[in-house]
């Protein structure tokens, strides 16, 4: 009985990891195509997936470059970095679990510390399963994401006129897909609406790229004072 429970647990981790991994890796196609549409070449696009390897920041970097060009390079870097801050929190949560072994293994753990590897690890009930889930999910996504990025970049290259193919709308839909699972709480919804409004209203008066950074202040203000929180502040 105990043995069966263990093997069932192992199957669950495997199913979670591979399922989440393959679904996530598929986004790589859209990233590759959008990156090339934004003016990056295939090498630059693949470099981002290999080294940056955090979808939100990658989409943001090419999105800001697409709307503002190299003049918005500073804003593009800042937006990508700010979106990467959540990985610090994930790293702190994963450290007790996966920070072991040699230096290379520990750097590899940090490298694949992203939304999905952390989420699958946190969903497991014991440490062994959590560790397996973290590594399996991270590795499946790393391999898949890089392969699909290359495929997407080649497709994007072949498409030519990206506006005619609606790739600008696809980029907006991709950001919406990344945001959607985060909107469960009222506070998050309020921040999303306010940030979208601030970005829209400041677009005509600021350099491209800056409206997104100004909108980030909404999160700092709401988060600092814990506004729109349904729980009473203690």
């Amino acid at each position, binding site marked *: 009985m105990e043995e069966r429970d263990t093997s069932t647990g192992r199957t669950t981790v495997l199913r979670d990891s591979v399922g989440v991994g393959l679904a996530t890796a*598929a986004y790589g*196609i859209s990233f590759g195509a959008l990156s090339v549409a934004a003016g990056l070449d295939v090498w*630059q696009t693949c470099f*981002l997936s290999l080294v*940056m390897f955090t979808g939100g920041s990658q989409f*943001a970097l090419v*999105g800001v*470059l697409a*709307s503002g060009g*190299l003049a918005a*390079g*500073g804003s*593009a870097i800042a937006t*990508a*970095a*700010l*979106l*990467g*801050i*959540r990985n*610090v*929190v994930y*790293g*702190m949560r994963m450290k007790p679990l996966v920070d072991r072994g040699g230096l290379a293994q520990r750097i590899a*753990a*940090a*490298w694949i*510390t992203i939304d999905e590897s952390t989420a699958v690890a946190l969903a497991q009930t014991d440490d062994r399963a959590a560790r397996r889930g973290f590594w399996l999910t991270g590795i499946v996504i790393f391999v898949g994401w890089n392969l699909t990025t290359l495929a997407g970049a080649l497709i994007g290259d072949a498409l030519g006129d990206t506006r*005619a193919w*609606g790739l*600008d*709308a*696809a*980029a*907006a*839909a991709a*950001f*919406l*897909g*990344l*945001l*959607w699972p*985060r909107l469960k709480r009222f506070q*998050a919804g309020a*921040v999303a*609406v306010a*940030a*979208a409004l601030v970005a*829209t209203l400041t*677009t*005509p008066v*600021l350099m*491209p790229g800056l409206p*997104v950074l100004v*909108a*980030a202040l909404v*999160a*700092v203000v709401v988060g*600092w004072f*814990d506004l729109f929180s349904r729980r009473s502040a203690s």
Partner: protein
Amino acid sequence: MTTWHVILIASAATLALKLGGYLVPAGLLERERPARIADLLTVALLAALIAVQTLGAGQAIVFDARVPAVIVAAALFALRVPFLIVVIVAALVAAGIRAFV
């Protein structure tokens, strides 16, 4: 600044942040306020990027084929349609409107 500079600096920054999570003293970001701000930061940035990507054209705000495409995408995400399919449908909606209207 060339495109490569932007890519290298941004990649170094995001990679440093990932490593940073394993290096900072435990408990710093576990405190409620910094953790909440980090969480909401992601939401605010993504929402702002959606707005700019949907309505922005340089420094102008325009309503074009992207708006119905994003509305369709929102409806599909609400119906739990997978990411890649939604993104492709959004592109097709915008492309279709541009081709026929």
